[in-house]
């Protein structure tokens, strides 16, 4: 019994951390620019296909971890410059515009790599013994890696001057601008950072998922639900939200089926969002 619980805990933790990586970029973009980025799932997808690209080029997997954030930062910059910039003050149009980008990016992937699923060989094969259970070594690597990365992101936002400035823009854009903070520069760079985080998450997760062009939306919706459930505008809310969403997903899909997990989690999230529009951690107004 303890065996099952440990596996379940490790699986939940694994999924939470991966989802947290995707969500971090999303929450910063939403909090900072008030843009619902529907293309975020496709940033994740492109990150995973960077791994495929590296495999086809015969290079080691680890290069993909370097390549993915760089490529996605550039994609993020391009998307911001070409589309997002024009729809900042049109909230609904920003949803639709990024949705169109997501369709186009997905289709580019289908054209270049084909519609079928690709499987990536795990770069650290073999299991290890941990806490009395055998667990795949690469999954442990993912957990360590994402903890480091999430930690670094939190430090960046809460312990550096740039992070302070970004949080200042989130809290009060007009005030920050009149204090001499270049909000336009921050919009651009946070969008690129958010995209790079999603790409990195995609690259890291590629070996334990089936990489196919439809995988983006499978991460987009849980990531959004995490933000809305946890509470918008704070990084802590994102953490709480991802933990709630991914723990429920893992538990229900272990106990029942994956389909049931999806239905249960979405229904639960709708109820929570309806009852607590500010999120679980949000202030009551």
């Amino acid at each position, binding site marked *: 019994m303890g065996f099952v619980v440990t596996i379940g805990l490790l699986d939940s933790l694994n999924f939470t951390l991966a989802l947290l990586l995707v969500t971090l970029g999303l929450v910063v973009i939403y909090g900072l620019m008030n843009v*619902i980025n529907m293309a975020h799932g496709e940033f994740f997808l492109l990150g995973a296909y960077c791994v495929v690209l590296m495999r086809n080029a015969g290079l080691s997997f680890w290069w993909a971890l370097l390549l993915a954030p760089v490529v996605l930062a550039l994609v993020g910059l391009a998307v911001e410059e070409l*589309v997002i910039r*024009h*729809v900042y003050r*049109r*909230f*609904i*149009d920003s*949803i*639709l*515009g990024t*949705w*169109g*980008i*997501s*369709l*186009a990016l997905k*289709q*580019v992937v*289908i*054209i270049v790599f084909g519609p079928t699923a690709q499987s990536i060989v795990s770069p650290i094969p073999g299991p290890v013994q941990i806490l009395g259970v055998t667990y795949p070594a690469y999954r442990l690597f993912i957990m360590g890696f994402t903890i480091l990365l999430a930690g670094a992101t939190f430090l960046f936002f809460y312990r550096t001057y740039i992070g302070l400035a970004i949080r200042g823009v989130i809290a009060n854009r007009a005030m920050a601008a009149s204090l001499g903070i270049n909000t336009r520069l921050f919009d651009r760079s946070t969008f690129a950072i958010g995209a790079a985080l999603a790409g990195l998450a995609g690259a890291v997760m590629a070996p334990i998922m089936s990489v196919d062009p439809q995988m983006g*939306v499978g991460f987009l*919706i849980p990531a*959004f*639900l995490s933000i*809305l459930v946890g509470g918008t505008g704070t990084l802590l809310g994102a953490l709480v939200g991802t933990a709630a969403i991914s723990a429920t997903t893992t538990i229900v899909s272990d106990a029942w089926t994956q*389909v049931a997990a*999806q*239905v249960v989690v*979405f*229904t639960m*999230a*709708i109820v929570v*969002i*309806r009852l607590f*529009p500010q999120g679980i951690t949000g202030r009551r107004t």
Partner: protein
Amino acid sequence: MRWKSFRSALTAAIWVALSLASLILNEWSLTQLAQYMAYGIFAMGLAFIWGQAGILSFGQAIFFGIGGYCMGLVTLRQLPLLGDSTLVGLILALVMPSIAAYVLGRLLFQGRGLAGAYFAIVTLCAAVIVETLAQQWSFIGGFNGLLGIPPFLAPWRTEADAYLTPTEIYLLMLAASLLVFLVLSYITWSPVGTVLAAIRDNDLRTAFFGYDIVRYKVGAFVLSALVSGLAGALFVKQFGFAAPSLIGFGLSTEVLIWVAVGGRNVLLAAFLGALLVRSVEGVLSDRLGDYWLLALGMLFVVTVVLMPTGLFGRILMPPLPKRLRGES
């Protein structure tokens, strides 16, 4: 003033042209166009709630799908108590989506209701849930859906196996489209439509004026669901099957594209948007293959960014009702 009457004349001319098309086009084109009109009706339902009431729903196909499945179940005799007449199927296809929209609308709009992004994400999730459930529910055919739904019957013919001809189906679809257009336009022009527009522009202020905005929003949501259900029922009768893809996330987002490309604020523009995108898709998707969806995605982004009123929104904008026009 001349610009205004030009736009009204153009609206009338488009309906006349669509009627004359039944004399000019060959049977195959008419069949295609009649199917696209089902999508067009669906698009008008979405444009009504989005353009007039400002509610962006990512789950509109739920109601299209419910309508389609109801019509399929009845005419396939899967609900023996209700018989197998098309009329009963049609009534069920109007009633069930309305009930679903009423329940969903009450849940989401009641009290300090959801709006904007929250409403969009929640309806998106609802569409995914409903699609997943439709795939699992064997009574409605699971993954395969309902196959072999009989086409429209023509009871006035004496032959044993008499169905409507393509031209008749086309005229039926045209009549249905025109009816939906007129009813929705009437509501848009009526005082109710003005209140909906006020809710779209500033719901808090409208509430302070003493309007029960929840009731108006739920009402508009139900009406648009009813129109979507009608479109779904008319669609499955022509296509012959109802599958989970009709009820879910994919079609919900496709209809958003049609409406955004055509023009979200104008019913006829949304209708033409659906016809245009589907027709172009029919011609180009064979030739362009995978590049077609890429082109559609980019066209969508370009219209959203550069032309928020859509391709036809500006030239087909109906005049304001008389009581809202100034003295001049």
